[in-house]
């Protein structure tokens, strides 16, 4: 099994003709991902190392039955490309682009949620890797192998860090999902943990959070009510510098939520084991898996 990406994935890359877009599309294909198309307006008819390029997502879907999109265009074009992918019927849209305006993210998130046709992962995320099946994004797949640990993370490099330690202990991953750390992530911890809960391959879930927002606190509640599988968490930012701010509205809204300590406390109060360093998280995961085995 695994979640979100696998051998059924037919990937269409928006921005495939850009330097980074080409590089990672081909890397994803080398890994075994079925990269069926690319989209670059005005370059329809060309190809990138054999991958056909189309002017619009709609043409790409019509010609190749693409079901997954990867967005690799510059930030000012990203919202448009995401909405185009959704309009064209793409089911899963993975947005790598970083630096998208917050109001664009808000608009796109709400539009896609209300329509209920597509799932969005990212923006500003490293993508999704189901080891041995498919890699959509920029996760360095070589450090991970197939296994039974599902990982969901707001941070890319931190994911690699934790996944790598787990791999070094001889365990592997069902799927690694980078949800990104932007103000309005298309998918949240809850969305992905729910998928892992339903995924037979996944036996343990690692969630990797950060300070800010309340996604971890909400995930803690969700896990307590809906998740039977063991969950191990890490929260980065215990030592993060206080930001500077002029206004007070933010503090009114978030109250005491949002700090690493509050998040860790919320998670532990609901039975989620929280590791204090990436290494400790990996060790916790390994010990739980060892006990289960």
């Amino acid at each position, binding site marked *: 099994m695994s979640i979100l990406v696998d051998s059924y994935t037919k990937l269409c890359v928006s921005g495939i003709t850009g330097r980074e877009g080409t590089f990672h599309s081909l890397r994803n294909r080398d890994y075994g991902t079925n990269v069926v198309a690319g989209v670059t307006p005005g370059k329809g008819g060309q190809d990138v190392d054999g991958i056909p390029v189309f002017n619009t997502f709609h043409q790409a879907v019509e010609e190749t039955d693409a079901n997954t999109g990867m967005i690799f265009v510059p930030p000012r074009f990203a919202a448009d490309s995401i909405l185009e992918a959704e309009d064209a019927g793409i089911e899963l849209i993975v947005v790598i682009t970083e630096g998208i305006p917050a109001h664009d993210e808000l608009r796109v998130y709400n539009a896609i949620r209300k329509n209920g046709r597509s799932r969005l992962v990212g923006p500003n995320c490293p993508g999704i890797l189901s080891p041995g099946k498919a890699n959509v994004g920029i996760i360095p797949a070589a450090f991970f192998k197939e296994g039974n640990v599902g990982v969901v993370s707001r941070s890319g490099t931190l994911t690699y860090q934790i996944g790598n330690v787990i791999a070094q202990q001889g365990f592997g991953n069902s799927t690694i999902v980078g949800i990104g750390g932007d103000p309005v992530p298309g998918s949240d911890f809850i969305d992905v943990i729910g998928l892992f809960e339903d995924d037979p391959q996944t036996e343990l879930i690692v969630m990797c959070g950060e300070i*800010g927002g*309340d996604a971890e606190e909400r995930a803690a509640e969700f896990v307590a009510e809906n998740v039977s599988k063991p969950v191990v968490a890490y929260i980065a930012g215990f030592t993060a510098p206080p930001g500077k701010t002029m206004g007070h509205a933010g503090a009114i809204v978030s109250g005491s939520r949002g700090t690493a300590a509050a998040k860790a406390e919320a998670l532990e109060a609901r039975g989620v084991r929280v590791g204090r360093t990436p290494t400790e998280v990996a060790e916790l995961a390994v010990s739980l898996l060892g006990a289960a085995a």
Partner: protein
Amino acid sequence: MDLLEYQGKQLFTRHGVPVPDGVPAKTVEEAVAAADEIGYPCVIKAQVQIGGRGKAGGIKVAKDRSQAEEQARAILGMDIRGLTVHELWVEGASEIASEYYASVIFDRSAKAPLVMLSTKGGMDIEEVAASDPDAIARLHVDPLVGFQDFHGRRLAFEAGVDSDVVGPVGAMLAALYDAFIGEEATLVEVNPMIVTPDREVRALDAKVTLDDNALFRHSENADLRDISAEDPQERMAKERGLTYVKLDGDIGILGNGAGLVMSTLDVVAQAGGSPANFLDAGGGAKADAITSAVEVILSNEKVKAVLFNIFGGITRGDEVAKGLIEAFDQIKPTVPFVVRLDGTNDEEGRRLLAEANLPNVHTEPTMDGAAQKVVELAGVAAGDGQGRPDEAQSPQDAGLEAPRR
């Protein structure tokens, strides 16, 4: 990007938010001329991007020209919570019948704008939120449908504003929402929003935070950036595409990815060290970015040792190594470096470092080991007992995030 009060008010005016007339001034002479233009009594207000100006003496009423000159002279150059006053805003004095609080904020959690209104304006609203949370009416707005008149009415009735200003208060909230959306702000806050004896509603203060990522669509706002108010090292970093925040400790930190850098700070703190900075080289940093990053880190004289913590995804280990080698060539650092290099092209990177044989550069295979090592080296560099790390810093303020890659 945070705006100064007067910049916020000028932005408000574009969206129909009523504000008192005013004129900005950078010198005592300009301030006096402005006061003459506005008429007396007027208010001389320090323009700094921080709250608590009033308490610090940065807001003064002038009844005549000689007072205007006196107040302007006193406030210009004043230090308010670490910020020097370079600019003034001279505005007509307002008569105040009631003071309210209003704001629109980008609520990440609800994924919608949140509009707040309270009749307890003019005071510390965080305290109101803590002691009397029901005194603040709150409504989320569906961003696809936008602010409706009923939102304004409902907030006004729920907050309990005077019944004769329900309409104007609602209109003010609609205009603030329009400014929030139109300028792509993440915060628009007015405290106090006043009702005059003539029953007019006005924004007497303006706190506006704009989304940096959207400034390309708002060139007139992009020009407002006050470079002089920024930390010179942070500015240098920004110009080079790096995310850098200066801290109080003595261990320079470089990593790739905000999460990994935050985690590195935590691990260093747990090992008993005290980070001197947060520096995210970003994804896919090339050698020259790494060289720049070293320069930024070392521009902080407190730094006694530097930790590189790299787990390469798009970032390639060989590029990191090349950048470090180049930095040693250019800057010739005297403090010790600890390098932990994993991920894409890590072996190549470690080989390059080994070949370069840089002075006082230690490679460590794990993040935890690297943190231990750099804390140890910083302690040695500081002299025994002297450079003992501070206590780990306290958890950060609520609702704020560290900068992201």
